[in-house]
């Protein structure tokens, strides 16, 4: 009789511990992040595409100063763009279109100075899975008068 009660009590304690463990496991699983985001709050995906798909460049009046289409070489990782004669190269707004889920580093937060033509500006394109990084060089040339 005594042994039977003892076994019964042991069984109850075991059941409680198992239940608590199950609860903890459930909580842990439910709290686990299944949609990871990077330091910018952007979704990290599985995409490995990493390239510039199009490029635009605007003057201080937010009107395009581009002459013709920007030539993007995804192998050489260059963007070659010609801007109108008389463009103020110190105050331009570049605009990149990237492959899906990519991001750009450094971020473009305002006017960009392209006046040092000997040292073109560079940006790194980072893929959606944040594993592939490609350094693009933007070569600006000015249309002759």
């Amino acid at each position, binding site marked *: 009789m005594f042994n039977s009660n003892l076994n019964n009590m042991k069984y109850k304690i075991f059941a409680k511990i198992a239940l608590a463990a199950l609860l903890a496991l459930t909580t842990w699983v439910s709290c686990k992040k299944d949609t990871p985001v990077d330091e910018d709050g952007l979704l990290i995906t599985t995409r490995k595409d990493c390239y510039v798909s199009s490029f635009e460049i605007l003057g201080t009046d937010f009107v395009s100063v581009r002459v013709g289409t920007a030539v993007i070489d995804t192998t050489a990782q260059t963007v070659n763009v010609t801007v*109108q004669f*008389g463009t103020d190269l*110190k105050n331009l707004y570049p605009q990149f279109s990237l492959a899906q889920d990519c991001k750009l580093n450094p971020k473009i937060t305002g006017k960009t100075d392209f006046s040092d033509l000997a040292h073109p500006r560079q940006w790194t394109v980072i893929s959606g899975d944040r594993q592939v990084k490609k350094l693009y060089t933007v070569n600006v040339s000015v249309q002759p008068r």
Partner: protein
Amino acid sequence: MRTQSKYFNTAFLLVAALSLVGTSCKKNTYALPVAPDKLQDEAIKRTLGPNIVGQNIEFAYAMAIKPSKGKLVNCTAVASIAGAPGTYMENRSFYTAQTGADVGVTVGSPSVTSGTTTTVTYNHDTSAATLRYYYVIPEAARGKTVSIKFTATSSDGESISTTMGPYTIAVMDMKLNMAVSNNNLMYISIADSAVYNAADAVAHAASIDLVYLYRNLTTSAFNHALVAPAADPQYLPGVTLPAGVNRSAKMLKVFNLQDHNLAANEQFGGTFIDDIDFQKLDLTGDPNFALNLKLDAGVWVETADGKYRAYIFINSVNTAGTAVISMKRYALK
């Protein structure tokens, strides 16, 4: 006990619901408003935007008294700073016809302005009228505030007043529709708010800030341009500057900033450039040229001596090499 409580709650809810229904269905009785026995007035400011010296501030002042009490005798507007010549009050009260047009009905003699006071004396039996007052902002008010006190007097000896303002008068000034032309009226002085040809520019060389030029090139989009005399000569092709014209203004090109005062076409709506825009303007690092300017484009400018900031708006352009520009100018020092 529990059952009793339940019944009590149900009954209470029922009474509350019925009272709500009763209240919401109650008929609101409407009574015609009764006009007060005393003389009444009301004023509104009709103009919008910054108050610029030389421009009008327009008010509409309404006054009324019961016909049984008397009639209107006169109306005065007293400005805290005397208005410039041209300040007046309408002696007509307007109503809007079915066509939408304002129709004036003469109610008094033409206004008389003496110093700060403008008066209209009624010469028709009038119980109610709305008179418009046009205050032309004088030079003396630049950068100060102005208030207008309207007073109506009735034949029973009553008078009533309303004070409007204070309104801040802008420091900036404005020059509209200056014609510029290639190889002729091409030297622009912001300090003088004027455009000169080469001969006159020599006499005003120290105040020439910009050169207007038009070049129709096949190799580039030069077109209409505003260029500082000290800019790289490649931006002044074929221009021989008059002696002493050598200043370097800073410029920032913008598009579609259609200031309501500068843009003749009123469809541009309620965008106004005011003193604060010039105060906050920072042209550090901006160039001294602006090429390929189109209709409705504009250029922020700061003169080389730092005395003026200006916004120049392109009202019209012509491929014959002419343009019409308008300018708002703010004195910094």
